[in-house]
C-alpha cells in the first residue's frame, strides 16, 4: 500500500469516527459507495456464517434512512459515542479495492452523565479507491459481545 492510499484510508477512518461521534450523522452515509454493505453483527454470528445484522444496509439510501429515522421517528435518550480505534491492518490490495481490518472500542455517555463501555470489536472493510477518494464498499462491524445494552440507535 503506497503512502497516498494509506493516507486516503486513514482519512476515511478518521472522518467516519468524527461524523458519528460529533453528531454529524447526515454526512455519515457519504463515506459509502451507492451500492454498499454495512452490517453490525457479532463474533458468534460472524463465526457461524450467519448474515443477520442488528443494522443491515445494502445501499447508501438505507444508511440515509437510518439517519432520518433516528432524527425523525425513533425515540431514545440523548447519548454520544466516543470511538477509540487502532491502526489499520492491510489484508489484501487488489487494484481499486483495499481490504483492511482495525479494532474499535466505543464508550457511550448518556445525557444523565452515565458512562459505560458499549462495544468493542473489529471493522472488516472493503474500501474502494478512486483517484483521490476512498469510500467504504463494505463495512462489517463485528462486535465481540452478542449483548447490546438497551438499544443500538447511533451506528457503530
Amino acid at each position, binding site marked *: 500500500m503506497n503512502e497516498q492510499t494509506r493516507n486516503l484510508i486513514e482519512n476515511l477512518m478518521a472522518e467516519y469516527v468524527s461524523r458519528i461521534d460529533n453528531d454529524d450523522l447526515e454526512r455519515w452515509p457519504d463515506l459509502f459507495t451507492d451500492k454498499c454493505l454495512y452490517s*453490525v*453483527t457479532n463474533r458468534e454470528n460472524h463465526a457461524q456464517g450467519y448474515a443477520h*445484522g442488528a443494522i443491515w444496509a445494502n445501499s447508501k439510501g*438505507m444508511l440515509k434512512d437510518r439517519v*432520518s*429515522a433516528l432524527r425523525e*421517528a*425513533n425515540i431514545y435518550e440523548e447519548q454520544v459515542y466516543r470511538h477509540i480505534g487502532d491502526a489499520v491492518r492491510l489484508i489484501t490490495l487488489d487494484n481499486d479495492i483495499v481490504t483492511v481490518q482495525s479494532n474499535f472500542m466505543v464508550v457511550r455517555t448518556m445525557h444523565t452523565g452515565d458512562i459505560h463501555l458499549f462495544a468493542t470489536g473489529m471493522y472488516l472493510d472493503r474500501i474502494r479507491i478512486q483517484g483521490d477518494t476512498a469510500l467504504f464498499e463494505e463495512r462489517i462491524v463485528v462486535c465481540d459481545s452478542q449483548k447490546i445494552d438497551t438499544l443500538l440507535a447511533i451506528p457503530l
Partner: protein
Amino acid sequence: MTDIIATSGGVKWPSDKVSTIPFQVYTDENQYKIENERIFKGSTWNYLCLDAELPEPGSFIVSRIGETPIVITRDEDGQLNGFVNRCAHRGSLLCLKHKGKAENLTCVYHAWSYDLKGNLTGVAFQRGVKRQGGMPDQFKKEDHNLRKIHVTEFSGLVFGSFSDDAPDIESYLGSEIADRIRRVLNRPVRILGHNTQILNNNWKLYMENTKDSYHASILHTFFTTFELNRLNQKGGIIVDESGGNHVSYSKIDPSLSNDDYGSQNIRSNNDEYRLEDPSLLDGVDEYGDGVTLQILTVFPGLVLQQIQNAIAIRQIVPTGVETTELVWTYLGFQDDDEAMVERRLKQANLAGPAGFISMEDGAVGNFVQRGINGTEEDTSVVMMGGETAESQTFRATETSVRGFWKKYRTLIEGQVPNA
C-alpha cells in the same frame, strides 16, 4: 381500593381485578423469589430453544428457565432431554459451552459424567486410589442423576417445565394460539442470526410491552408512518382462556383513512417522512393471508414475531429483579431463495435492539423502572378496552396485558382473579 387481597405472601393487590397493577411487583425481591417458585418452576411451559438447534444425536445447547441454567440434549434415540445445568455432586455448572456435540456430559470439577438422558454414569475414583478413599457402598449412582425437567416440542419450538402438573403443550397454548404458531413456523427454519438485548427493567415490563397493542402505534413512529400498523387497520387481539398467551395481528387496509389519528394530534402522524430506499418495505405475502403483522406471546417468556417477512423469536430471561435479557433469534426458512434471504435481512432492521419499530421497547421498560423508584406503593392502570381479558376485534386495548396478570395472579395466588 381499601380492600387488600393478599393470598400469596407476595405483593398485595388493591383488588381482585387485573386492571390496577401495584408497582411493587416490579421491584420487590420477595416477589421475584415467589415468581421463581410459582411461575418459572410452576406449571408453565418455558421456551428453551429451537428443535433445529439440536440437529443430531449428541447435540446439546444451554438455556435458562427464569435464572435457572438448563441444558437440553438430543440423545441417541433422537429424544429431547432437559435438566438443570448443574452437576449433582457439588453444584458446579456442567456445560460451559453454549452449544455443541458430546457423547456424555462431564463436569470439569471432579469429572462426574452423565449420559445424554442425564443419568450419572461415571464418578472419578469411585473405588478410590490404591484401595484408599472412594465412595462408600451406600453411594448409588442412580440416586445422583441430573435434575430432570419435562421437555416438549411444538412446531419446532422446545419448551421445558419443572412441574408434573403442566398440561400438554397444545392445551397450554390454547387452540387459537397453537394455530397461529403453526401458521408462522410452517416449514423447516433456517437461523439467520442471534443477539441479546439487555433490558434494564423487570422481566414483566417487557412481557407487558409486547402484549400492549395500545402503545405500538404511539411510541413507534416508524410503524405508523409506513402504514405497517395503524389502529384503524383490520386486526385484533386473541387472548387464550388462561390469559397468558396472546396474538395481536393486523392486515393492511388502504381504504381506511388516517382521520382518527389526525384529530388526536398524536406525535407519530408524519406524512412528510419518506424512505430513500423503500425496498426495506417490499414484503411478500408469504402466508397468503394478508396478515402483515402477528405478534404472539406464550407465558411466561416467549415472543414469536412476524412483521412482514421479519420472523424472530424473543426469549425473555430475567437476570435480576430489575434486569432482563432478551435473546433474539432471527429466522428464515430452508426454502428461502436468495431474494427472500435478502428481504429478511433488510426487514430485520425493523425489529431487534436497533429496530426501527422496536428500539424504543428496549428503553421504555427502564423508563417505568426509573419512574416508579421511591413510590412503589402506587399503582398503574390498564383499563383501555375494559377491565377483563377477553379477545377483542380492535387494537386500542390493553386486554392482553390484563390477560398476562390474569395468568400471573392465577399462578401466584392459586386462584383465578376477576378477569
